[in-house]
């Protein structure tokens, strides 16, 4: 399986993602934002970080990068595109996934482990994962927001990917770290080939450093892609 990780000026999780993808069997290429052509890929990842210093709105500048025209075409033709953290912010700015990510409710930069419950397993990203996942979050703008009409459409189309919860999978407000509507931590496009999520699976791929739910995620992803 071939993957591509896009590096924007200010990306800082691109190399972590490269390490994670390679560890679980992807042949990964790093792609510079100013390139026009996307290498042949089974998966494209927009990594976390602070592209363009979060100027204007997080992800807004990066969403207009040269490479993004190719990424958008790739996604619209059914290609798998995953945006993590700042990558999620870039995805919402392209309009590939609905909604926006606002400042965290209590104006704090949040850096901690969280649990997420998979809301929709009928897709390549989460099919066959049957447990609550422990991932890491580190963000200032992860407060998912959309209009009432959009929320209805998102729910009708089963586009909510994951919700913040406790270790037993309870998705109550007290387990919502940032004020996101309905504890939403990740969203799909209608077709479920594009996934944006705030948590970082690439930070959970080593038992002695953090945890292994990221390993579970990437192993499952490459198996589902085969």
């Amino acid at each position: 399986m071939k993957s591509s990780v896009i590096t924007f000026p200010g990306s800082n999780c691109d190399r972590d993602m490269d390490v994670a993808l390679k560890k679980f069997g992807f042949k990964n290429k790093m792609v510079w934002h100013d390139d026009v052509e996307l290498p042949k890929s089974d998966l494209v990842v927009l990594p976390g970080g602070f592209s363009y210093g979060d100027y204007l709105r997080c992800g807004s500048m990066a969403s207009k990068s040269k490479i993004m025209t190719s990424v958008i075409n790739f996604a619209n033709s059914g290609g798998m595109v995953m945006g993590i953290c700042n990558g999620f912010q870039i995805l919402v700015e392209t309009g590939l996934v609905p909604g926006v990510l606002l400042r965290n409710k209590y104006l704090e930069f949040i850096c901690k482990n969280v649990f997420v419950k998979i809301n929709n397993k009928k897709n390549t990203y989460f099919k066959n994962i049957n447990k609550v996942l422990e991932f890491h979050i580190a963000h200032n703008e992860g407060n998912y927001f959309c209009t009432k009409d959009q929320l209805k459409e998102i729910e009708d189309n089963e586009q909510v990917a994951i919700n913040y919860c406790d270790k037993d999978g309870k998705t109550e407000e007290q387990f919502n770290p940032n004020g996101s509507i309905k504890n939403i931590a990740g969203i799909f496009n209608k077709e479920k080939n594009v996934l944006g999520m705030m948590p970082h699976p690439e930070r959970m791929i080593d038992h002695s450093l953090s945890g292994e739910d990221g390993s579970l995620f990437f192993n499952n992803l490459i198996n589902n892609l085969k």
Partner: protein
Amino acid sequence: MKISVIITLKKDVLDPQGKVIHQTLDGMGFNNINEVRQGKYFEIDAKENDPKKAKDKVEEMCKKLLANLVIENYKIIDAQ
């Protein structure tokens, strides 16, 4: 031609920064405030002398980059 644009958050969008500014003003003794909403202001010096054309261009900029229409409104307030 200089054009000014104001971007504001839509009414039903939570503005935690505005809220904190409100609280701080309140703590400073400015007690008769109902609400504070924070926005953005842009001054764009366009290479265009026709006000109509310049405004149209800036409107396009607002829709494509300066504002996110899911949560924000824009208002072109001045062209001179």
